[in-house]
């Protein structure tokens, strides 16, 4: 499987569709732990991303990802803005100069994204944050020769199940400590949609 410009755009557009569709759900998840604007912010930000992608012509995957990162950064806001912008910015930097991204390169990009995310959020695995979705996906790409779409889906949904049972120690949800167990982290759920979208693009591409 390889990622080119058009598949990358398709990936992001699919992710946007899922976020738009689940805007209210994401906001509901955010209400007890944050200020209840995660869904609204992500939906506004990703809609702006898609508008931007429609306006431009792209030569390289990294150019697409850079516009994704910069638009998220300026349009999402809150704490989610810099976190989601960071993962796409790290992917951009890791994939710069390549016309077609193979699985190995994508794995390197995801690893960079995860370390950037951990650094930005001062978080690590097991703290009930979006790291707990991004990190297992990065591991999947790192440790498998041929990743197929069902393993992406499987890994993402397993990761989300685990997040549910964790106790929050980072971010706003940490205010609620034990009460956070059984609750889903909205940033982790948004991340899940991003990988669900990736899996669908992957499926279409590998045939």
């Amino acid at each position, binding site marked *: 499987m390889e990622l080119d410009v058009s598949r990358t755009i398709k990936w992001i557009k699919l992710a946007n569709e899922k976020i738009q569709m689940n805007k209210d759900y994401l906001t509901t998840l955010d209400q007890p*732990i*944050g*200020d209840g604007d995660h869904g609204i912010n992500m939906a506004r930000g990703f809609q702006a991303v898609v508008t931007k992608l429609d306006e431009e012509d792209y030569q390289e995957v990294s150019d697409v990802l850079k516009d994704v990162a*910069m638009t998220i*950064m*300026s*349009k*999402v*806001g*809150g*704490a989610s*803005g*810099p*976190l989601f*912008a*960071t993962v796409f910015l790290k992917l951009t930097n890791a994939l710069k100069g390549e016309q077609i991204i193979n699985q190995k390169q994508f794995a390197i990009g995801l690893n960079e994204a995860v370390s950037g995310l951990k650094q*930005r*959020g001062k978080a690590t695995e097991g703290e009930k944050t979006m790291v707990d979705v991004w990190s297992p996906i990065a591991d999947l790409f790192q440790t498998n020769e041929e990743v197929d779409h069902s393993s992406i889906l499987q890994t993402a949904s397993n990761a989300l199940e685990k997040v549910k049972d964790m106790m929050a120690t*980072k*971010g*706003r949800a*940490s*205010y609620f400590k034990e009460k956070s167990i059984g609750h889903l982290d909205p940033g982790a759920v948004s991340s899940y949609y991003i990988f669900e979208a990736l899996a669908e693009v992957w499926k279409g591409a590998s045939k």
Partner: protein
Amino acid sequence: MKKIINDPDQVVQDMVNGYIAAYPEKVRLIPNTLVLARKEAPIKGKVGLVSGGGSGHEPAHAGYVGKGMLDAAVAGEVFTSPTPDQVLEAIKAVDGGEGVFLIIKNYTGDVLNFEMAAEMAEAEGIQVEKVIVNDDVAVEDSSFTTGRRGIAGTVLVHKIAGAKAESGGSLKEIKQVADKVVANVRSMGMALTSCTVPAAGKPSFTLKEDEMEIGIGIHGEPGIERKPITSADEIATELTNRILEDIEISKGNNIAVMINGLGATPEMELYIVNEKVQGILHDNGIHVYRTFVGEYMTSLEMAGISITLLKLDDELKTLLDAGSEAPAFRS
């Protein structure tokens, strides 16, 4: 909701435009941003100072832009951190070649957005240092933060770091003095009524007619206790004692006191509180070097106050006394 506004979605833009119109000789708007910068910035050879955060805390932070204090303030939406691209524009606008110093209140969103901007500025070759202010002794973690919140004590960081920068201090020296202020400044607040975020249209929380909340945050985040309202003396005593339990201020120490109104509390009440605070400090043998009474860090139309104490040494005294031409802070 009863507010003197035109459009809830335009309040920040409208305010910024009005601010520029009020002080055209002091500040300018960086095009296509909500960044207000000192008219003469960037100043060659001087470290640039940038602060900011969500709007709704006026006169913070734009009111502190001026000679002797900040070089730029970034205004986010009401109670929402500005985005990294905005902060980056502020950094670029005030870099006079000696680097830029960021003063950040400790809220998760502010810290993430300002740190990301700092990294981007560094990638463009601008040296950046920062301090994170966490003066609120009320709660350790809250719905907006990990760790303590940054409130009115931030204004004293602006003042002292600003004076250091104005006197030609290096980025490293400014960082040192700002860290010293953060280590020695403590605050705590209380509220009688809620604030109403314009876009939300209804009060963020409700307190009963005879009820007050101790330790409330400047966005209406929960404090530590709701109870029947007491007298000014009792409120002043409770807040001052909580602060004194948190930081060791000994007999003979010099301090600065700030009695801050949260938006809807008359100055009369601030002075009533101040009298009691001064009395308590006097009884403890603590010498009050400077007192500031007024609105410095508000929470829209919340009725309430915060008390800030800053322990001073000779360096901090000198810097606190240095001149400021910022509209909201006169030395």
